[in-house]
């Protein structure tokens, strides 16, 4: 298992390098002179030259690329154009909020999605199955900002169970938890749609396999047949989809943070976009790239735990 994990980590390096290169190239194809974009066309030649120097734009594109990679290798994301603060510290200060949001929604998504999918497959064409199908169709159709706004309208404006604008100061743990509920539900319920769908089809496939008949021929009660024998196998596609969904989750987290006015990486991305803060945007993309690659590694490692064929072959 350790060998498998190490191998997987090594494999991630070229992927990470490629994604970082893409980010580097994209940020540099901003049309026009970035100093004009940043300073406006009234800026003096001297000011623009200074900025160019500061951004490292005076150097050749190749040495810019070396610098970029070198800094990242040292955990340095550069400084924000707008505030001149180190981007790393800005990221670190909001990262816990994004992490708690994604973690909470992962819990909501699996805790509801998996049993619903299993139940739907077990009682095929029954009420649970019908409900699961309608729910996952709806969940797959909702853009995260639409569902977020609907949740806000219903639970904050009409029912008044939660504050419309969560307080920016989230020191009080109770308040912080309360502010987490709606955003986590928003992200989590969207995830339930994916998880339910893949659990259901994975279970339907597993329940039709020969080894299920073998398990029943041993006289095992159906609860054990379903969970120990069928579900363990259905888990393989479920883990794959949850892993793939982590990417979607990162994107949806951005929207959820905007809608619920939560601090986090997503809010920071929007700030960077609005202020045309390209170094901040670049830094945030680097962080996202790391998160995605890390999520992929975790998925593959879980895969190795769930499916013995992966680690022994």
């Amino acid at each position, binding site marked *: 298992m350790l060998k498998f994990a190490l191998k997987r980590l090594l494999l991630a390096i070229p992927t990470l390098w490629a994604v970082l290169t893409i980010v580097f190239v994209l940020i540099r194809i901003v049309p026009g002179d970035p100093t004009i974009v940043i300073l406006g066309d009234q800026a003096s030649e001297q000011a623009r030259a200074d900025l160019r120097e500061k951004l490292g734009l005076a150097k050749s594109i190749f040495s810019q690329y070396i610098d970029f990679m070198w800094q990242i290798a040292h955990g340095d994301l550069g400084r924000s154009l707008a505030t001149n603060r180190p981007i790393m510290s800005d990221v670190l200060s909001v990262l816990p909020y994004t992490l708690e949001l994604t973690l909470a929604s992962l819990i909501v998504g699996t805790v509801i999605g998996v049993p619903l999918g299993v139940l739907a497959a077990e009682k095929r064409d029954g009420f649970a199955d019908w409900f699961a199908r309608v729910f996952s169709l709806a969940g797959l159709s909702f853009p995260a900002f639409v569902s977020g706004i609907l949740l806000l309208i219903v639970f904050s404006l009409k029912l008044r169970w939660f504050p419309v604008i969560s307080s920016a100061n989230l020191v009080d743990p109770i308040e912080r938890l309360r502010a987490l509920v709606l955003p986590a539900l928003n992200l989590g319920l969207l995830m339930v749609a994916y998880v339910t769908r893949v659990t259901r089809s994975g279970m339907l496939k597993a329940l039709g396999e020969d080894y299920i008949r073998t398990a029943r*021929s*041993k006289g095992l009660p159906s609860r054990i047949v379903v969970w120990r024998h069928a579900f363990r196998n259905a888990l393989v596609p479920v883990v794959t989809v949850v892993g793939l969904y982590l990417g979607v989750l990162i994107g949806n987290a951005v929207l959820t943070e905007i809608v619920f006015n939560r601090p986090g990486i997503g809010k920071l991305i929007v700030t960077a976009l609005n202020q045309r803060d390209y170094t901040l945007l670049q830094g945030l993309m680097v962080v996202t790239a790391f998160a995605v690659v890390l999520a992929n590694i975790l998925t593959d490692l879980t895969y190795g735990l769930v499916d013995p*064929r992966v680690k022994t072959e």
Partner: protein
Amino acid sequence: MNAPLIVDGVTTSIRLDGQRHDVVRDISFQVAARETLALVGESGCGKSMTALSIMGLLPAGIASVSAGKIIVDGIDMVAADETVRESVRGNRIGMIFQEPMTSLNPVLPIGFQVGEALMQHQGLSRSAARAKALDLLEHVRIPSAARRLDDYPHQFSGGMRQRVMIALALACGPKVLIADEPTTALDVTIQRQVLALLADLQAREGLAVLLITHNLGVVASVADRVMVMYGGDVVESADVKDFFARPTHPYSVALLAAMPRIDATEGPQPIPGQVPSLDAMPSGCRFQSRCHLRQDVCSTLPPLKPVAGNPGHQVRCWMRGDT
């Protein structure tokens, strides 16, 4: 003493679009301890449905036993509720399946899969079940079984997996074993080894074995008695010697002619036509659509009757058997 497996007048039906079709019709037999009864026929003749009826593993809501009694080691599987049936399955009766490649759970270690029934029926702890599983795997001659307890099915060859399946089916020391095409998916040399192992275990444990196969070569080498099924009916039933000496039903004759033989002067003769689909089954004798002896009387179902005054050899045909 009663036979460990008694099947008495069992009819199994499936419901398709609101219509009832009998896939097993009024079938009766017994299998005594140490005896092997072979159930023979083409695909779709009702062999596996018979096996699943005995095990109580018919697909729920679709197929069910609509008449008759199935007594496994003294317990009526038809009248019993699901809890009782669960306590019989894997405990008093075991089953091995055709596909050793897909019949084992790919994500559970084989030691656990073999010992699982022991935990369920005998309340053994995980470690006790594991120790017993090791014994069982050694019994079925898995080489260096101790090292392989925690291996997964994909690490075993087809023949070895079928040995694991046998160990799994026999874990709780059942009185009855159903073997559904246990060697069909295996190489010929491996087939022979697995059959020899089965015969050996049967002698040692005194098992009653119901062997389901379409391979008459296997029947000739291991069975004591033969029952030929066609379209859900038993069409011939005999001791294995009598059967091969005097195959009587036109279908049995055709089956034997379809088998390649070393001593034959001609090549194997395929049986013309196919088993009719469920909704196209003729009334009366179900083989009539493929039978060269067909007469008007065949639209009435013939009874089972003795052949040449031998009550142990029975045939269901108007044209054959004693009158």
